[in-house]
């Protein structure tokens, strides 16, 4: 494949992952779906109240502790699993899945400390995904 083809695939991929991030943001912040990286950034800030910590910090710290998960695809698989068919998204289904995973994490006690905030592992993984995708 030539370079243009690679770039095209990468851009498609980023758009796709951006969509995924919007799903998780909807789950996290209970606000309307974010449609662009800048909205995603705002949404994350809204949920984490802006300064403390930034979602990028959460994502970076999580990946620093669990470097084996530093892969967009790995995180996508871990969070969305088989509910993600090809490149299409059934948004309500994915929201439901993230919520279910989050509930399961809390119920199991699978909680991650990120700059003081105690969040579900799924949330930390989604922050890591957002970090890898957008560098927020």
């Amino acid at each position, binding site marked *: 494949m030539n370079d243009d083809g690679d770039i095209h695939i990468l851009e498609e991929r980023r758009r796709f992952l951006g969509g995924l991030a919007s799903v998780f943001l909807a789950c996290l912040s*209970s606000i309307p779906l974010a449609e662009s990286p800048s909205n995603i950034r705002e949404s994350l800030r809204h949920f984490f*109240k802006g*300064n*403390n910590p930034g979602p990028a910090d959460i994502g970076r710290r999580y990946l620093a502790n669990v470097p084996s998960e530093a892969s967009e695809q790995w995180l996508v698989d871990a969070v969305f699993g088989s509910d993600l068919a090809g490149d299409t998204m059934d948004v309500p289904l994915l929201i439901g899945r993230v919520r279910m995973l*989050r*509930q399961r*994490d*809390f*119920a199991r*006690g699978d*909680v991650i*400390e990120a700059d*003081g*905030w*105690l*969040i*579900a592992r799924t949330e930390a993984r989604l922050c890591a995904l957002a970090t890898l995708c957008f560098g927020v």
Partner: protein
Amino acid sequence: MLSRFEDIPSGSQVEADICVIGAGPAGIAMAKEFLGTDTNVLVIESGGLEFNKEIQDLYRGLNQRGDFKLHKSRYRIFGGTSYVWGGWCAPLDESDFQTKSWVPNSGWPIGLSDIMPFYVRAQPLFELGRYRYDVADWDFGESEVLSLDGAKLRHRFWQLSPPTEFGVVYREELSQAPNVRVLLHANATEIVTDPETSTVREITLQDLHGRQASVSAAAYVIACGGIETARLMLASQRHNPSGIGNGHDLVGRFFMEHPHPDAGGVAFSVEPERLKPYYERNWDSEKIIVGWGPSSIAQERLKILNCSIVLHDSIYYEPSEGMDSLVKLSRAIDSGEWPDDAGAHIWRVLRDLDGVLRETYMRAKEGPVRGFGLIARTESAPNPDNRVSLSHERDELGMPRVELDWKVGELERTTVEQTVNLLAQEFGRMEIGRVLINQLLLEDSDAWSRNLSWFGHHMGTTRMSDNPRTGVVDKDCKVHGMANLYVASSSVFPTCGYANPTLTIVALAIRLSDHLKSLAGRGLLGAA
């Protein structure tokens, strides 16, 4: 009857059936129990009806940790430390009485069922309504009480006393009592025993003006609180240099307090109204506080102590350690008492100036409440190295002052950290919000233990045990090896749970009164 030490001739001997040393909540509760009986009770109290600085200074001593002053955490006045208390009442949990394999030296020789009737009888002394310390006993109307996972968290519940000032509320009743005499300004300076140190013969009394007297009684009860009780026993060395009841070097050891750390905060993702039972105090014409703590199952699984967490100051933006410290500093300024750790608080404000400014701005704007701070109150583990001992310095009466040498350990820190984590799990599971843990709880034990608040819960220094090798008093609160000496104080607590101690102190005092009444009824008061 109320009388003053200066009104009796110096050198005289006062007689009674029972002598109670100390007129705090325990001593006054005992005196009330004997109203209308044939037993003559003498209550001796160092203080008077009004606060007196010279008398209060007799409490000065050295707290090695330096985080609270011994003479400012308890009061020598008729009514004792109820003069300044907050009124939080809660019984111990059933599990607090049990031996826990992961907590060395834990467990009582009695259980909750042994003390329950006395909790119920103690309740009205605090001007409280019915004894009901379970959320299920209360109607919160439309508001929600969370349905907790019992393997993790349980509710914690306090009923709030007005708070009752025992020295004010019960003064008249005791003044009128023909068989109860309260002797003010009388300082017990020595417990005098027979040469075998098996029977108390008398208590020596002094005041700050050189007057002396003594008390002779059939039975004696020390009700001087968690520090002074040990001090008096240790200082009574006429026939034994180790003091009274101290054959196994236990008096003064196992000192406990309730560390109160700022635990962090919670940012709600639901309307705070939903959590009203956890921040609104007025329900059903009474005042209560509802919080959370680890269930006994969680304590065992995580190998932690008992603990409680409650909501405190409202948060308008987000939890902020700087704001917590600013509030503490502002309270200190209001009270006129600059805290010893003021520098650390100032540093925390500066370090978190951004959060402080934002929070202050949102408060000024009277924006919606987004969450609350969290304050914890944890059990401390019974540790023999945490101890009250006598120093070489003496007070104005010639009594050795005390030295308190103790540490807050890693288990206490872990307990609070794990409890906050359990709260985060449950708030997350129920989609209530997210919890921010105070970073200090994640630091090493020493850094953490330097940022705690204390509320004068001194316990454990004459602990209860069936075995004289592991305790100072037996299950009847009688000093092991002594025929007629008892203790009514939080000093008898072998383990302390999370609950504020005053309700349990008074319940045990009533229980001891019943025991002494039974002995008196059989003519056995003071018998071995």
